[in-house]
């Protein structure tokens, strides 16, 4: 058995459960759950407003996570804004930058985006009558870097793209892309969707040199409902706060308001205090395991899955995304003969208690306009998975043939 499974009550209590859907949301180790309880049981109070001890303790715990997140991605504390998740972060960036975009501008993104990093920008472009440009992918689901360089020009206000694709498993060369586009247009604002990178790769925003970056706690062992918006401080200042209200102001009169300093200006209202406090325990856990080990482990499982699927089913299974294991993160999307992905997932669940995700994975343009399939099935691996999980998945696929064949 995988060493890490023991840290997760849900896996200890359900030894027959095979969870292969961490790309949608990861499981949460006990240390994180205990930290959530610690807050509710011991210092349950609002933050930043109380002058009594429990409120002070809650505030301190909340701000400690900000420090930890800053260290985790090599940023400064005031560059870290807490949100409810990647979707909220990306919307705050898109709407917060909207005044900078005009009808002569264009916004560039890619064909492999999750809807969370597609629709806010498509809407922004539409509202401002700006051009919305979508970069192509190649046959193996890798970004077409030449096409990207052709799409970016002097009028490109924003380039926004994902670090890792949640469907194809493609890992984009973020640093190189940012270097290249800045040669074409030094003023370009770069936004990175790191929702699928933060659980698996060491993030270093200084090294990547991105202007904004977004990710979610719940995909990296953390609680649901907490996420991060990172912005280089001089770029963060450009964001117009789209939420206004309590805790984000400096002074309010009946006529006007002035806003608080960053990052508080972008955190209106009472946040997910327990979630943010416990989030640092998941960062600690990831740090203890180490990203090198996580990647090695995942690559081993991806390789094993590729081989098993090929050996057992040959060309009956079609896997999307990069063919080389080193280029493919832990999300593996596939189709199996004529079987509809819904039936694949339902039978895996019904017969083997294996959880996978099916559908369009919030990437409709990718499926419809680039992969030309109605839907795919996707398994994804994380640090608590092992070869037994993959074996059970393979056995489940065989049952599909027996039941529907």
């Amino acid at each position, binding site marked *: 058995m995988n060493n890490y499974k023991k840290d997760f009550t849900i896996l200890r209590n359900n030894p027959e459960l095979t969870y292969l859907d961490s790309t949608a949301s990861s499981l949460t180790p006990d240390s994180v759950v205990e930290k959530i309880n610690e807050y509710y049981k011991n210092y349950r109070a609002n933050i930043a407003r109380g002058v009594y001890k429990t409120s002070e303790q809650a505030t301190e715990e909340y701000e400690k996570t900000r420090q930890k997140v800053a260290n985790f991605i090599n940023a400064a504390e005031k560059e870290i804004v807490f949100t409810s998740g990647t979707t909220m972060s990306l919307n705050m960036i898109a709407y917060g930058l909207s005044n900078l975009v005009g009808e002569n501008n264009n916004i560039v993104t890619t064909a492999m985006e999750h809807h969370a990093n597609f629709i806010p920008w498509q809407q922004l472009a539409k509202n401002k009558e700006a051009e919305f440009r979508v970069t192509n992918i190649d046959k193996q689901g890798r970004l077409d870097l030449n096409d990207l360089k052709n799409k970016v020009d002097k009028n490109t206000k924003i380039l926004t793209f994902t670090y890792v694709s949640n469907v194809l498993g493609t890992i984009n060369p973020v640093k190189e892309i940012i270097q290249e586009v800045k040669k074409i247009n030094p003023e370009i604002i770069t936004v990175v969707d790191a929702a699928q990178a933060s659980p698996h790769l060491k993030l270093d925003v200084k090294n990547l040199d991105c202007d904004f970056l977004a990710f979610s706690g719940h995909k990296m062992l953390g609680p649901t409902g907490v996420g991060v918006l990172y912005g280089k401080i001089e770029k963060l200042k450009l964001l117009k706060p789209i939420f206004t209200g309590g805790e984000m102001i400096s002074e309010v009169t009946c006529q006007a308001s002035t806003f608080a300093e960053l990052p508080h200006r972008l955190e209106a209202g009472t946040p997910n205090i327990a979630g943010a406090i416990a989030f640092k325990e998941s960062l600690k856990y990831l740090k203890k395991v180490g990203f090198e080990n996580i990647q090695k482990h995942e690559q081993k499982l991806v390789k094993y899955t590729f081989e098993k699927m090929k050996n057992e089913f040959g060309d009956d299974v079609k896997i999307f995304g990069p063919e080389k294991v080193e280029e493919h993160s832990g999300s593996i999307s596939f189709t199996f003969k004529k079987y509809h992905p819904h039936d694949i997932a339902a039978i895996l669940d019904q017969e083997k208690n294996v959880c996978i995700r099916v559908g*369009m994975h919030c990437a*409709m343009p990718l*499926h419809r306009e680039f992969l030309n399939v109605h839907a795919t099935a996707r398994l994804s691996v994380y640090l608590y998975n092992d070869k037994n999980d993959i074996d059970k998945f393979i056995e489940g696929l065989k049952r599909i043939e027996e*039941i529907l064949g």
Partner: protein
Amino acid sequence: MNIYQEQILEHYHNPLNQKKIKNPTHKSCGNNSSCGDSLCIDLKIEDDKIKEISFSGEGCAISQATASMLSEEVKNKKIDFVKKLNKNDILKILELELSPARLKCALLSLETLQKTLENETK
């Protein structure tokens, strides 16, 4: 519970009423955006009755089998009867219990059929 019961598999493997009908009086399509299923229905209605029906589309075993079984069920039935069909009628036809996610697959054909009744060709 095993939802892949014999009656479902029978209709999944050999769906009825897939042959295009000539000169349909009503047509429309529906889809389920989370799973990518899509379904189109053609009808020939005479004297407030469904005389002919055909469907085509992409979908899982549940959605395909439901379309097949439902299309048999409504043949020669009054429009008013079809308009009143609901979730429970579908489950009765299928002889199944379904989770909310799979229920959506099963209801696609009913929703599309009821929409088609409102969609006269020309």
